């Protein structure tokens, strides 16, 4: 069954949180995982759920040879 917008945002956030430090997930990885668990989910809703996570600062885009969605963390490359 398709998730509501709020449920979808939390579903994706949990995936990113669980993967943190273990696997970097691309936006498309998240979409595929959502559709696997909820085949009738609208793809566009997934895109906008990721957008909401980014816009609210709960997740950030990172670039390490490709663009990933991650939980905000300390910049490893920067000197602090």
């Amino acid at each position, binding site marked *: 069954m398709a998730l509501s917008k709020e449920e979808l945002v939390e579903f994706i956030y949990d995936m990113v949180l669980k993967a943190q430090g273990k696997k970097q997930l*691309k936006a498309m990885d998240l979409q595929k995982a959502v559709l696997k668990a909820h085949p009738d989910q609208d793809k566009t809703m997934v895109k906008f759920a*990721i957008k909401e996570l980014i816009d609210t*600062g709960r997740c950030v*885009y*990172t*670039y390490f040879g*490709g*663009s990933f969605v*991650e939980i905000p963390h300390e910049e490893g490359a920067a000197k602090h």
Partner: protein
Amino acid sequence: MSDTPLLDQLESGPWPSFVKDLKRVAARKPAAKDLLKQLDRSYKDKITHWKHGGIVGVLGYGSGIIGRYSDLPDEFPGVEHFHTIRVNQPSGWFYTTQALRDLCDIWDRHGSSILNVHGSTGDMIFLGTTTDELEPTFAELTAKGWDLGGSGSAMRTPSCCVGKARCEYSCYDTMDFCYEMTQEFQFDMHRPSFPYKFKIKCSGCPNDCVAAVARADLSVIGVWKDDIRIDQAAVAAYHAGEIKPRGGGSPYAKLDVKADVTDLCPTACMSFDGKKLAIDNKNCNHCMHCISLMPQALRVGTDTGATLLLGSHAPILEGAQMSWVIVPFTEMEPPYDNIKELIANIHEWWSENGKNRERVGELMLRLGMRNFFKSVGLEPPSQTVRTPRANPFFFWHAEDFEAEAAGRKYIKI
């Protein structure tokens, strides 16, 4: 002794030196001084001292900021952070002097003052600022109507030649099309969600001034369907040396129409008897050689549009791949809904099947053109055959036999 002895040597030649320019900037920007010192150190160590990537960006965007850090921050604190900002260029790179002043003032206030006009994707590149200055720079840019361009695994900023604004060869309005695509794919440009980068480049004619065929995942190259227009009197004038070839842009004063034009036609579809030029237009491959040599005598046809090609990229191991024709001819009428739909279908197919860091051209080769055409809903025209009559093998599918039994010679893909 100088801090940059190796770089100093680059100032000694007769050519303009970027070192001289950077030293001028270094007089007012400490970052530029450390930039020079770190580069000199790299020349000595024969290794880069830059680290690339990371999490820097502006809120809401996953593109447009490229993180860059020095791996020797204690020695070169001015370039401890030296991030790049890509600013979405206007179509055709037309700026007013006021717009350029605005951009330079913003960058003087918030960054190193060093610009790259323009990067290979087409954006104006602001080189070198700190993490703290990213949001203020972005705020000032947007207040003046600018936006960031694409970077990372995203739609990159579409770019185009000057098109109809300054070129009579242009077979469609490249600037309008480029602008439309930039607006249409804003979401994908600022929020990376593709397996890798995706570039659209738009050239108005086969001269391909933005090198779309070699540099873009989707190359949109203007072309005509009807006959090349000929002004025989002007051909005679070229032959007599009354008009200089290439609009005067050639070292040669006089054109030998037979030797320089018709004999060099790649498909040998032209002939010149000393008085009259004839073109067998059916065999013309639109290379533009003749038109570029005699622009006052020959003009592109009037039934114009564009050819769409897909897949150019230059991977290090496999070597460069040029774009491959997927749509031989399409009308280029705003709002270009057919092309927007096709691009969306290509994105869908690529995102569904592509591996991490696999360009759409690599996927096309890996899964094959048949799979591509079926998936994006295109007919496979004969122009997509890269090397006609060169492959003795044909792989029949079960559907082909079923189609034959049903009385059709070929299946409809």
